[in-house]
């Protein structure tokens, strides 16, 4: 469970986030939606500590994250898995080494155990015989799956997905969605998905937060969207061919 309280963030004179408060529940797919430039990517970066907030609190299961030093932050980050928009796989490492990377860094597993875990994660994302391939030789969908495999290698408590479907065809998008949803429920992870893809939202969204001009404009379950009466949210949905 992650709780945000009164988050403010400015870049120079430009304020991007205004008093954002939200609650992301464990074992659920929590969606953050909003138009481009609304501040949802900045919010996600604040949540994982890549951007320092100006004001407000971020709590991971009651543990403060926004106002602790770098070393303490690194400890909480070891519980976080992240799927990046561009996958951010290490291009100098093979698929196997990419997934093994956090295992070799943070566990005392021997090499046989590491490879077993890598193979388990690859099987979990329906990839086989790709261990020795490099990211440059993979398709977009395969890269996303490897990204998910790397993100779950250490059994994270929190999974962040930044635009998991961007650049993928509709069929592969749905496969990635189902994979994220299955993993969330199976391992009881707090998953936060930042997306524009309304189809994904209606297929797998449990909790939804709509960010509009840097503010938490609407929050609720997907079934409540149609009757929300929130003009900005409904027009965003309509523009997305809802």
């Amino acid at each position, binding site marked *: 469970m992650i709780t945000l309280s009164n988050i403010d963030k400015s870049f120079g004179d430009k304020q991007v986030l205004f008093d954002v408060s939200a609650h992301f529940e464990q074992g659920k797919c929590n969606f953050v939606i909003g138009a481009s430039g609304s501040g949802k990517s900045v919010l996600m970066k604040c949540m994982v500590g*890549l951007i320092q907030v100006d004001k407000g609190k971020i709590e991971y299961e009651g543990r403060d994250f926004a106002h602790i030093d770098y070393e303490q932050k690194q400890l909480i980050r070891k519980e976080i898995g992240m799927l990046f928009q561009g996958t*951010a796989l290490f291009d100098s490492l093979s698929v196997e080494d990419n997934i093994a990377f*956090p295992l*070799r860094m943070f566990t005392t597993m021997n090499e046989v155990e590491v490879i077993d875990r890598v193979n388990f994660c690859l099987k979990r994302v329906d990839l086989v015989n790709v261990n020795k391939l490099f990211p440059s030789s993979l398709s977009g969908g395969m890269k996303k799956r490897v990204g998910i495999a790397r993100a779950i290698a250490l059994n994270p408590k929190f999974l*962040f997905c930044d635009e998991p479907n961007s650049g993928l065809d509709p069929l592969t998008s749905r496969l990635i969605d189902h994979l994220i949803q299955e993993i969330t429920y199976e391992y009881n992870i707090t998953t936060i998905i930042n997306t524009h893809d309304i189809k994904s939202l209606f297929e797998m969204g449990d909790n939804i937060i709509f960010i509009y001009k840097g503010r938490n404009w609407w929050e609720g379950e997907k079934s409540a969207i149609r009757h929300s009466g929130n003009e900005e949210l409904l027009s965003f949905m309509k523009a997305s061919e809802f």
Partner: protein
Amino acid sequence: MRLIEFLGEYFLFLKSLFARPEKFRIFIKQTFTEMYSIGVGSFSIVSLISIFTGAVSTIQIGYQLVSGLVPEYLIGRIVRDSNILEFSPTVTCLVLAGKVGSSIASEIGTMKVTEQIDALEIMGINSTNYLVLPKITAGLITIPLLVIYAMFLSILGGAISGVVSELITIDAFVKGLRADFIPFSVTFALTKATTFAFIITSFSAFYGYKTQGGALEVGQSSTKAVVFSCIGVILFDYILSELMLSR
């Protein structure tokens, strides 16, 4: 003002760098990989540059000492001193600033713009420590070794060119090499090489790390890394000469 800002950012970058590596075994492995890349990868260019620097210095010194009053062996002595004190450490490091510096800056810059560094941070890894410390350590070990190698080759190149162009006999050249040798010259050269190694690797990593944007900015960072590394090498060449050689 911008200089103070630059220095502030640079020293904060260095501060973040020096932490205990997460896994020492991985740090050692990374360092050896970087040593191979910097050392073996630069072997041929350093060989070529050194032989020709030595050869040209012999010919030019011979050309300037055309007098029956100056003993022939002095050519060997001047070639030895100029190559050990200046040409081998400085020219080699200027070449390495171009080759190694641009490679480090573009590698780290590309990782930055493709969010690979963010991925490291989110995994809980100190990215500067993981990525940059092995490169600096490898540079501090490998570049002085390359400079020692360059010293030998430049003197060899000087001897060959002196003999081939009939400026000096090999016996006179060897006599010059052995005349009034001051071992401190080598200490000075290696101090310079170590300082330059730190400048090249840390400046290049710093500019790579500061990259924001895309492919264009990676190229710009790489260019800045080379330019500022060269300026750093020349500046510290003067400072170290003033500190260690002036009386």
